[in-house]
């Protein structure tokens, strides 16, 4: 680019130089011609002027791009011209008028014609002024030379610009485009999740290299942040799972507890049998079931005979053990569907589902006998106090009572009668009888 403008500047310099050259040459020729012409003018020898100009026009003038030379007298009349027929006043020639007025050399460009013409004039002075010489020089060959120079300069300029453009393209492609492309591709890979993608390291500390470094740093940060995040999420997930498991366990425990709680509320803590409340509920349930199916059920009220005496003899802990063993004996001789409950103290209640009076008495008898034959180990074989008996009252629904409380009352009445009758007896309600 610089060279290109140098080239064009060179052409301008050259134009100025060539112009000066032509002007200089023109004036040199005029000075040379001034000697013979001044003599001829002084001698008033027009034919001599003609001979001088004719010789000149035939030889040197054409080589020097001189189109015409004229010699004017002091009044501005053309005395001699390289075109011999031009003579006398030339009123249409403004340059002639200016030339005779000028006291020194004159230089002018006449661009009115097809080709620009350089006009020069100088006074003819040898001792004094005798006249004026004018000259017209064609600038065609100078213009041709300039045209050639311009063409060459333009060609040079175009060449230089093209070369510069190519070099610039290569430079930018190498230093900017290529790295930017790499950067873009890497960014694409990163955005596709390939967080370990990196821009290759570049030599030098230019902006692109710095950008690449920053990009890599950013990607590195992104990668470490992402992996940190993933670790956090994983750990949080694990924690949540653990919490859920604990919750499930807690729920399970809670269910068991609740179950236990319900069981506890309905179970006698010593014997593990239904307590009185559970017995009452079970009795109500059985009562409704009997009404639905119209099948009778029976209730046994069992009381341990002389339990106070046993307690006094062996102590309360043994008394409690006796109660536990009795309850186990009852369970052994009853059906699974039958409900055994500790009614209070040394009194038990048994609900025999779908059992009428006679079967109920037989079951009661079986229980009485089992207890009577049982030896309680804490008391020992030889100890008569180790033998325990029970008294049992039997009532059947709906024939003996129409309500649960009535049924319990009837069974209690029968139990009372058994006690009265000597104990170790089964008594059915309303004298339905039993045996000892």
């Amino acid at each position, binding site marked *: 680019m610089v060279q290109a403008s140098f080239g064009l500047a060179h052409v301008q310099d050259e134009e100025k130089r060539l112009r000066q050259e032509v002007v200089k040459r023109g004036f040199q020729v005029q000075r040379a011609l001034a000697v013979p012409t001044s003599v001829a003018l002084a001698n008033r*020898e*027009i*034919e*001599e002027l*003609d*001979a001088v100009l*004719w*010789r000149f026009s035939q030889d040197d003038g054409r080589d020097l791009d001189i189109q015409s030379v004229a010699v004017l007298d002091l009044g501005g009349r053309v*005395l001699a011209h390289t075109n011999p*027929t031009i003579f006398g006043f030339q009123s249409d020639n403004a340059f002639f008028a200016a030339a005779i007025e000028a006291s020194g050399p004159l230089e002018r460009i006449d661009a009115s014609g097809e080709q620009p013409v350089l006009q020069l004039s100088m006074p003819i002075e040898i001792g004094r002024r005798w006249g004026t010489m004018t000259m017209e020089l064609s600038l065609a060959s100078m213009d041709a030379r300039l045209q050639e120079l311009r063409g060459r300069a333009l060609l040079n300029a175009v060449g230089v610009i093209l070369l510069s453009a190519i070099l610039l393209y290569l430079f930018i492609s190498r230093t900017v485009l290529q790295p930017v492309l790499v950067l873009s591709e890497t960014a694409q890979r990163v955005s596709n999740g390939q967080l370990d993608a990196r821009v290759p390291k570049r030599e030098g500390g230019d902006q692109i290299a710095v950008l690449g470094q920053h990009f890599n740093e950013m990607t590195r940060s992104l990668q470490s942040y992402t992996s940190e995040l993933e670790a956090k999420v994983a750990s949080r997930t694990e924690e949540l799972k653990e919490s859920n498991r604990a919750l499930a366990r807690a729920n399970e425990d809670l269910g068991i507890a609740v179950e236990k709680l319900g069981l506890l509320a309905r179970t006698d803590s010593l014997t593990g049998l239904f307590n009185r409340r559970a017995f009452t509920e079970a009795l109500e349930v059985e009562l409704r079931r009997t009404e639905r199916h119209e099948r009778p059920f029976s209730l046994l009220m069992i009381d341990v005979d002389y339990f106070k005496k046993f307690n006094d003899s062996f102590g309360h802990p043994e008394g409690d053990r006796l109660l536990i063993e009795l309850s186990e004996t009852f369970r052994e001789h009853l059906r699974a569907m039958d409900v055994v409950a500790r009614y209070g103290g040394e009194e038990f209640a048994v609900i025999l589902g779908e059992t009428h009076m006679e079967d109920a008495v037989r079951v009661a008898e079986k229980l009485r006998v089992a207890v009577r034959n049982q030896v309680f180990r804490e008391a020992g074989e030889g100890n008569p106090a180790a033998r325990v008996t029970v008294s049992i009252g039997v009532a059947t629904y709906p024939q003996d009572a129409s309500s649960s409380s009535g049924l319990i009352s009837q069974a209690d009445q029968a139990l009372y009668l058994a006690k009265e009758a000597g104990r170790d007896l089964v008594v059915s309600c309303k004298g339905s009888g039993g045996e000892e």
Partner: protein
Amino acid sequence: MRFLWLLLLVGCGGGDVDSKGGGPLVETIAPPLSVIFEKSQKALDEAGIDTLRWGLTPYMAPQELYASYQPIAEVVGDKMGVEIELVMGETYADLEGQVVRGEVDVAVVSPYSYVRAKKSAPGLRVFASHVAKGSANYGSYIIVGEESELETLEDLRGKTFAFVDRRSTSGYLFPAIQMLRMGVHPEDDIKAEFYQTHDRVFDAVVEGRVAAGATYDGALRQGRDRRRDGRGVRVIAKAPRIPHEAYVIRQGLPVEVADAFGAALAGISTGTREGRALLAPMLRINGFIQVEDSHYDAVRRVEAQAETAGLRMEAPSRPLPSEESGSEQGEANEEQTP
């Protein structure tokens, strides 16, 4: 041939041309001068010619012409080994007639006379012309007296005008055509008179016997030098320049004669001491050059314009009775160009 002549002009020393001028270059281009002269001698011998008649146009007083050309004729004759006899034409037309009829062997004729004679005698050959004041052509001027109030050709209408001769190129043909170009008819618009020689025209103008006249550049200088009264002329118009006179050889003369005559003339120039001595009477002639017929084509074009304009070129242009005394002023005639 042309190269040879130019070399001779520059390098030859007059008398002993054979050995001095004949370098290798000359020998390769043309035969040595001795050969040229030998061939000419032989041709003349075969034709039985021992004297060449050299005709001159009377554009100046005959004695002046003779004084100018005689030394040259002697040198040329010596070289060619032949007698040369100078013949003065009484008028331009007279000499032209002698050339056409072959009554002279060699002649120096005005350009216009040559063009005319060539038409009548196609075998006529031009072989040389001369260079004067460094130029192969010369100027024709229309002049008025120094004190005259006439400024342009237009001012000449109705005035008396001095021409030289209808066969004169610078004293009639060219200035007449210049007048025509400027819109002044040389026969109808002015009173044309013919003064036969250029010096008479000059004097007639200076002395006011005519309003204006036409003459050639040599006569201007000659006139200024000749007149002691300080009276001069002023140029009011110029005609195009004219090739100098034609040196011709008559129809039928062997071409070797022309070659030898030209070679002998070429040895004479103001470039040598001998040449300057020979040309001193014709001070402004520098030497001689070889020319061909086409050298005079410019004259033919002007002649055609004259014919188109209907100028009476064949009319007589005899000396004016009143101008018989014109020869009195011929004492200082130096210049030899019509």
